[in-house]
């Protein structure tokens, strides 16, 4: 709940935004959001004031209550984009096991899992370094995000998240490098200015959540507390822990047509429990908000996530390897601390301003255990990131009664510093051999940032337009390592990107949105310097890579009313796409025997020809009689490189259906269906990837039943019957099959109202 008011162009949508929130929430976010927050939607819609401003509200709380939840401070998503959101309320109904799980029901999102303890969201057919993760407006992407899926979204504790905004399509103008396929903006839970205790000097609200699931025999909990002092200090903090055992699935899947079971994961003798799964995690968070006035505040936030003993499922064991060979993430930590200042000013250049100063550490320690050979290969990578962002907006300028415009702008810069070591230990003799280099090069550094401005224009009630541009600066520096034949890297890029879009009839029952976006991704240190074993084979560095750029054209249709729907079509061209190119043994760098002995070896290169990804995304939501809501999504994506070959791991046709019934006495129940068609269009790298069954990944349909009871405002219980039919299924490209039939049970004790 931030006081930072969204820019007036969004403010134009304040009541519009309210309406927009209703529409968006109705269309895109959880069912529950609409029911709980909107009330009479038509009444609200009729109340829209296109040029509403903060002064139009009777109190700041009124303004805040409307605006809050619709925008991320300092990282506001334009409503003229393909976007959706997952609210805390949605998460409390769905009870996701992780942050990636929380976005499974969003259109255009397909969550792949290389391990039980990992999850990577595909947005419009791309993931990892081609999508951007933001936490409270601060970049999580750093210079070691690798090609393909990664585990970092999982390192956000879903219990600390208030909302996840998903923007599909390029977002580099606002957010910089990496935002080619889309952006995931995570907004954390924060201490609220508790209206219950308004006027009293002190309030304390403890809360506790306990959870368990049978499929992975997990149990955990979280204790948190809010403290409010004198209406000027609010503190919220918590600690969580979860112990997760091996995941029982519905059984092995089989390749399309070939009927061959993939070699990963390996199963326990029961044929369902997957080896290479399970992990422990604990989290802690602390947020302090301080305000002297209601329009300016400081925030200090600390988050830590610690995951231990998390095997990488496809390497624990790898295909063909002995059962006890295992690549284990012994430690996967993320620490984030930041200070933010947000305020409103009566200044012609900045009406609102948000400044952040952040420091983040991403720590990873992994070990490949080969007990039969008494060998353990260990690697440690630490990334330290210092970041500064300043975002602001001007007052809205009105030209006559029909036209108004407003600028948003910002500057951001992040600096990474890396530590990377690797060594091999012969455990029988206690002897350790240090490698001359780790996965990355020690003491590498990466500087990335840019400045942007974006203007939003309103012409009558019928047209909203948007145009923006960014100039970026990126520098990569890494020392060479002659022993392993690694060249030093000193590269600079200064790309410029832009976007333009418009919405026709934004306040009408049917509106049309058109966008063109130019985004980019500069090669990062992973591309330029890393050597690593990936799913399809060994990958080695290419210090000569250039930035990849995308051009996306998208069109969307939105309807509001009893039946709310969105339908989007998009076409993205990627130039100089950074792709894996197969290489011969003789191309392997020196001092890297695993390159020569791997079945396949790749180097990242800029593709000669233009790749393209196109697709359609739809969402349909309707309010039904007798307390029922229904929501359905569908996504189709097609990708091919310039030669007409499939792009790796493009998700199959997929979708979701949810039905929810809620009663005023606190009971709720619902059913959720996730489905995907088979994916048989495989890239060369997919064919070599043991995670993908020979012939392709089969389709699936998985049914969950949800039951909930809210006994009082301080007690709520949720029971989810997972995978009721015991379906054996796998999200395309994953190493791990989905959970088999089981129960997930969660109890919340405490001020449930805050959710």
């Amino acid at each position, binding site marked *: 709940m931030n006081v930072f008011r969204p820019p007036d162009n969004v403010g134009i949508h304040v009541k519009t935004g309210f309406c927009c929130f209703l529409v968006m929430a109705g269309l895109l976010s959880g069912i529950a959001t609409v029911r709980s927050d909107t009330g009479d939607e038509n009444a609200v819609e009729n109340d829209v004031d296109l040029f509403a401003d903060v002064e139009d509200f009777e109190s700041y709380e009124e303004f805040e209550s409307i605006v809050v939840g619709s925008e991320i401070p300092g990282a506001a998503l334009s409503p003229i984009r393909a976007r959706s959101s997952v609210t805390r309320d949605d998460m409390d109904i769905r009870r996701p096991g992780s942050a990636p799980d929380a976005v499974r029901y969003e259109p255009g999102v397909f969550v792949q899992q290389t391990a039980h303890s990992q999850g990577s969201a595909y947005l419009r057919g791309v993931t990892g370094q081609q999508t951007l993760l933001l936490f409270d407006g601060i970049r999580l992407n750093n210079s070691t995000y690798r090609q393909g899926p990664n585990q970092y979204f999982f390192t956000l504790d879903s219990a600390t998240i208030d909302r996840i905004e998903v923007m599909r399509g390029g977002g580099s103008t606002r957010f910089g490098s990496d935002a080619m396929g889309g952006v995931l903006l995570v907004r954390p839970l924060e201490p609220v200015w508790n209206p219950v205790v308004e006027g009293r000097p002190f309030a304390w609200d403890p809360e506790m959540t306990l959870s368990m699931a049978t499929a992975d025999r997990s149990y955990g909990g979280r204790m948190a507390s809010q403290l409010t002092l004198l209406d000027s200090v609010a503190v919220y903090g918590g600690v969580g822990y979860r112990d997760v055992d091996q995941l029982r699935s519905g059984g092995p899947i089989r390749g399309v047509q070939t009927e061959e079971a993939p070699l990963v994961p*390996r199963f326990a003798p029961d044929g369902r429990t997957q080896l290479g799964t399970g992990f422990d995690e604990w989290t802690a968070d602390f947020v302090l908000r301080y305000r002297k006035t209601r329009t300016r505040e400081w925030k200090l936030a600390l988050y830590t996530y610690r995951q231990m003993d998390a095997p990488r499922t496809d390497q624990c*064991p790898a295909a*063909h*390897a*002995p*059962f*006890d*060979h295992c690549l284990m993430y012994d430690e996967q930590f993320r620490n984030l601390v930041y200070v933010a200042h947000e305020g409103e000013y009566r200044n012609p250049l900045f009406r609102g301003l948000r400044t952040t100063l952040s420091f983040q550490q991403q720590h990873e320690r992994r070990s*490949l255990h*080969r007990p*039969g*050979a*008494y*060998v353990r*290969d260990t690697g440690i990578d630490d990334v330290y990131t210092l970041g500064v962002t300043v975002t602001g907006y001007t007052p809205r300028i009105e030209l006559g009664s029909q036209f108004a415009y407003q600028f948003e702008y910002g500057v951001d810069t992040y600096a990474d510093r890396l530590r990377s*070591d*690797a*060594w*091999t*230990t*012969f455990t*029988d*003799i*206690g*002897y*350790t*051999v*240090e*490698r*001359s280099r780790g996965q990355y090069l020690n003491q590498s550094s990466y500087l990335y940032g840019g400045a942007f401005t974006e203007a939003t224009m309103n012409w009558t009630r019928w047209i909203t337009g948007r145009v923006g541009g960014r100039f970026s600066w990126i520098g990569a520096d890494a020392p060479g390592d002659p*022993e*392993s034949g690694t060249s030093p890297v000193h590269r600079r890029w200064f790309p410029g990107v832009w976007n333009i879009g418009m919405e026709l009839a934004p306040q009408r029952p049917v509106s049309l949105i058109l966008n063109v976006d130019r985004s980019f991704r500069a090669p990062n240190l992973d591309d330029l310097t890393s050597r690593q*074993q990936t799913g399809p084979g*060994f990958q080695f560095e290419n210090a000569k890579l250039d930035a990849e750029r995308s051009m996306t054209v998208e069109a969307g249709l939105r309807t509001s009313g009893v039946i709310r729907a969105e339908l989007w079509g998009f076409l993205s061209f990627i130039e100089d796409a950074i792709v894996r190119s197969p290489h*011969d*043994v003789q191309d392997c760098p*020196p*001092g890297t*025997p*695993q390159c*020569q*002995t*791997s*079945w*396949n*070896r790749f180097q990242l290169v800029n593709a000669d020809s233009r790749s393209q990804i196109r697709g359609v995304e739809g969402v349909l939501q309707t309010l039904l009689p007798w307390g029922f809501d229904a929501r359905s999504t569908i996504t189709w994506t097609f990708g091919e490189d310039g030669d007409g070959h499939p792009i790796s791991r493009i998700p199959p046709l997929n979708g979701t259906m949810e039905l929810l019934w809620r009663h005023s006495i606190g009971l709720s129940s619902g059913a959720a269906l996730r489905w995907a068609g088979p994916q048989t269009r495989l890239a060369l790298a997919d064919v070599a990837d043991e995670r993908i069954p020979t012939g392709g990944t089969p389709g699936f349909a998985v049914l969950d039943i949800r039951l909930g009871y809210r006994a009082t405002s301080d007690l709520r219980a949720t029971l989810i019957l997972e995978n009721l039919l015991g379906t054996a299924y796998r999200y395309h490209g994953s190493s791990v099959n989905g959970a088999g039939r089981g129960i997930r049970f969660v109890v919340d004790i405490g001020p449930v109202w805050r959710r």
Partner: protein
Amino acid sequence: MGLAACREEAPAGEGNIGDELDTSGSIERNRCPLETAALTADIEECSPNPTDYLPETPGADTWPACISDDNQYHRIEDNVSSIARVEAYDAIGALLWNNPMVPTISDFLEARILLDSSEGLGSRVDRRYDVFFEPPSAGASCGDEGIPAQYPDYCVGPSLLRPWINEAFSQALSGEGLLQNAARIHAALQWFMMISVLKEATTCAVTPRDCDSAWAYYAGGTQRDTPIGLGAEIRNMSRQVHDRVVDGLLALRCWRDLDSANTAMNLDLQRLATSQIENALYPGMMLLIRQRFVALARCGDETEAEAILEELRVLVPLWDSRIRIWSDESAETLLAQVGGELAEIDPIAVLDALDSVMSCP
């Protein structure tokens, strides 16, 4: 090597125990002579089977025209990862068994690093099975827990070879029996190479690139006249046997050229090719053993002789099941001979036993 030695958890150079371990100096070896004269005369009078593929003599066989007719092995895939493992085998050999000096502890350490690099030679030892034996029941593999112990002959890599290799390295790195342990490692890896050729030739029916691996495991991805690895060892002993093995590998490639579907259909032709490889490789390996027994009898250096005996103590039990196809008596004789002390070995009895089961390549 691009490596520096140090203690676990302190990879930034807190110590260098390699120096502490590296105590031995440079002691020149007094090798026992491994003579080609140790071969039996009969081998040289052998002639190919009528069903054999003979690319060196155009028109001399009954095989249809195929890609191997130019007497060259043409890879199915450009990249053959097994070649690097054979190169590692030779590199380990240069440090241990082919080292003109007595290998040092540092040599063993370096050899172990080569062996156990990620996806390296050791990783394949850990998963190697011997297609000579019956496999476990459907669905089970040597990578599954408990299977190697249940099927030690079939899962020879994880159940026998790897423990022997580990033990040899462990002893050597403690400074014990450097020559003997080098010989044990050599024998275990030599056996690995042989059964790998046969395993890959078998699985090539469903994975075409495995034919390349069969070829690579024999001679490191080289053509007939420039072998490395096991191929070089056999060729140095008998050009004739080596040529027959290469003919068999070319037959394998010929079959896969004629039967190029992903899953092979003409399994009769595959059987002819694999039999041709087997019929050449077995005598080749037997000759290596025979050569060592002869060397043992003529060796003037007890330490070197002990090393050869250690090599035989690995190889002969591994051969046992195959030898018993021809003669239980010979098998018993050989086991008894290598099970005794060096001084108790009866060269005449050994050679009789070996020659009685020797077949034409």
